[in-house]
């Protein structure tokens, strides 16, 4: 994730003068006794690629269907461009949706599928043809215009669905698990294609996904959801490096979580905190921007790649513990070591395999040292 230079950073959410394109204000949705969406407030800005991420049943699809107009909120309001969209039926909204199943009309050709929405606007024939051709070019489908949906591949169908929903140039495009039906390799290629198309058309995209890697790759901001609530909304790097909760840390990527009690180092201004986590072990030294009371319960979360694994105890490490290699997972580019500490905790540490034929440094049952700096992990409250 290359960081663009500060002047070019696209971050309308940090600009207090920027008006959001979409605003959820205290939105709740109940189906009978079941609360699908629980008091959600959220702003999405123009040209954003916004991801709603969460496990199935977390309410992300309901949130999206409310934007499309297929569900109405039980409480609260949803504003699009400052207008309450509750009274607008789905066919009158400047919002289009790309369905998880693609929902391509099987009796219509690719061309007719893409033209379907334009014809509903009673656009002139020439302009429809022009717009459809433009969409076919954008999605590289020119050769398949006359085929029926069952005569093209899964990846092509996905692009037809995208072209069809983009054809009306909506203010907002909703994508429901757009890559769910594709295999892994194709999914990765398509992610970049999606980003490319989003940038070219300048449309605001809201994507729903349960695949955290996908959300991290494509999105400018990610909202992590659980049980109808939004847990954290932030850019992918913030979500990854500074998760707001144990749930977020655990849901995104691989993480070691160690439970303990915090003791802030008094008056040092750098937010240093020591965490006592096991008897007979030195406390973990970390830093945090949060305020912890002495003796407060805390969770220390650290990513495996932030932990170094060495034979001898490193001299200057802020934190170092000894353990025994339990398991090694060789993944090609990296290797993950599962190390058992004398306390019984199992900690994962990752090393990059930068050399092609290197003798493997450690093997099962080896005694090793794990070490990390004071800023490598985050300290989380409940």
């Amino acid at each position, binding site marked *: 994730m290359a960081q663009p230079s500060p002047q070019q950073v696209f971050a309308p959410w940090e600009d207090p003068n920027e008006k959001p394109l979409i605003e959820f204000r205290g939105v709740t949705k109940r189906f009978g006794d079941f609360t699908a969406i629980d008091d959600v407030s959220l702003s999405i800005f123009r040209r954003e690629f916004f991801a709603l991420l969460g496990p199935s049943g977390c309410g992300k699809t309901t949130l999206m269907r409310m934007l*499309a*107009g*297929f569900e109405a909120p039980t409480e609260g309001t949803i504003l699009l461009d400052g207008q309450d969209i509750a009274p607008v*039926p*789905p*066919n*009158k909204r400047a*919002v*289009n*949706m790309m*369905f*998880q*199943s693609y*929902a391509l*009309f*099987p*009796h219509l050709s690719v061309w007719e599928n893409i033209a*379907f*929405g334009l014809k*509903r*606007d009673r656009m002139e024939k020439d302009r429809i043809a022009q717009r459809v051709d433009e969409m076919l070019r954008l999605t590289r489908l020119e050769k398949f215009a006359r085929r029926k949906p*069952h005569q093209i591949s899964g990846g092509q169908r996905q692009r037809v669905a995208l072209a*069809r*929903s983009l054809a*009306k140039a909506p203010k907002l495009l909703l994508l429901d698990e757009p890559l769910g039906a594709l295999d892994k390799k194709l999914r990765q290629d398509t992610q970049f294609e999606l980003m490319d198309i989003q940038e070219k058309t300048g449309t605001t995209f809201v994507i729903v996904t349960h695949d955290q890697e996908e959300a991290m790759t494509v999105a400018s901001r990610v909202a992590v959801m659980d049980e109808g609530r939004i847990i954290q909304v932030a850019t992918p790097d913030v979500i990854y490096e500074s998760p707001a909760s144990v749930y977020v840390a655990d849901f995104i990527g691989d993480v070691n979580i160690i439970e303990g009690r915090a003791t802030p180092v008094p008056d040092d201004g750098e937010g240093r905190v020591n965490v006592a986590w096991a008897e007979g072990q030195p406390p973990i030294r970390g830093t945090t921007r949060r305020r912890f009371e002495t003796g407060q319960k805390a969770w220390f979360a650290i990513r495996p790649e932030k932990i170094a694994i060495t034979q001898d105890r490193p001299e200057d490490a802020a934190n170092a513990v000894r353990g025994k290699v339990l398991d090694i997972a060789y993944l090609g580019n990296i290797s993950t070591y599962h190390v058992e500490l004398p306390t019984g905790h199992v900690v994962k540490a990752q090393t990059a395999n930068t050399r092609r034929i290197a003798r493997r440094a450690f093997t099962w049952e080896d005694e090793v040292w794990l070490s990390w700096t004071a800023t490598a992990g985050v300290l989380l409250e409940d």
Partner: protein
Amino acid sequence: MRRFALIAMPYAWLLALFLIPFLIVLKIALSDYALSIPPYTPTFDLSQGWQGVRDFFAALDFENFVFLTTDDLYWKAYLSSVWIAAVSTFLALLVGYPIAYGMARAAPEWRPTLLMLVILPFWTSFLIRVYSWIGILSGEGYLNQFLMGLGLIDAPLTILNTNIAVYIGIVYTYLPFMILPIYATLEKMDDSLLEAAEDLGCSRISAFWLVTVPLSKTGIIAGCFLVFIPAIGEFVIPSLLGGSETLMIGKVLWEEFFNNRDWPVASAVATVLLLILVIPIVLFQRNEQKQREAEG
């Protein structure tokens, strides 16, 4: 050997009791009416050897078919059969589609029950189902009693023994054939297609015409043929519910055979009826095949 027996038994049965009888019909259609037993000529006489066979074929002609074209009773009966079948098919579609649609939209746990309710009449006697309308439609029947009781009409409507009664009878008895194939296509339809249509700017009604109807097309066509084909040759309904003005070819054939005892003409009528039926049957087969191909 066992395989041979397995094939031979049903094969021989069908040859003897389906194909050969039909060839006999064809032969008699080409024979002439005679006041004898059996009432046609020539008959096959093998005692005269080869000469007999040649005489037999020499005596066959298309006279009966020519007769069918000269007497306007027959071609009127064919036309009116096709017309009555077509009107009834259209009415059955109008009645059956909303039922099939309602079934496909009902809660999934209700659907097997609804399906059984549609199939159940099919198991009950055809004759009884037709019969039940006589009491309803007759001059002093329940429908007239009901309408006069409401004060909607002063004098009883004449429905029984008209073509209207025949339409009602055909729609009523063949309705399950219309509902079932349409229901099958509607039930398979993905709901997200309708949502996609609305999302792209359709109202509910235009989404119905642009998506639901085209996607149930194969079911509609299959249902229409399943009503149309048997309705053309129908005998029971026109003879019980129809009147003297009701001309249907099945009835004509029956009367030609039983009342006039003109076997050659009856056979010619049957042959032409079959030729007429070939067209919708072939179209129906093509529709079925297309559907199978579309499904994969």
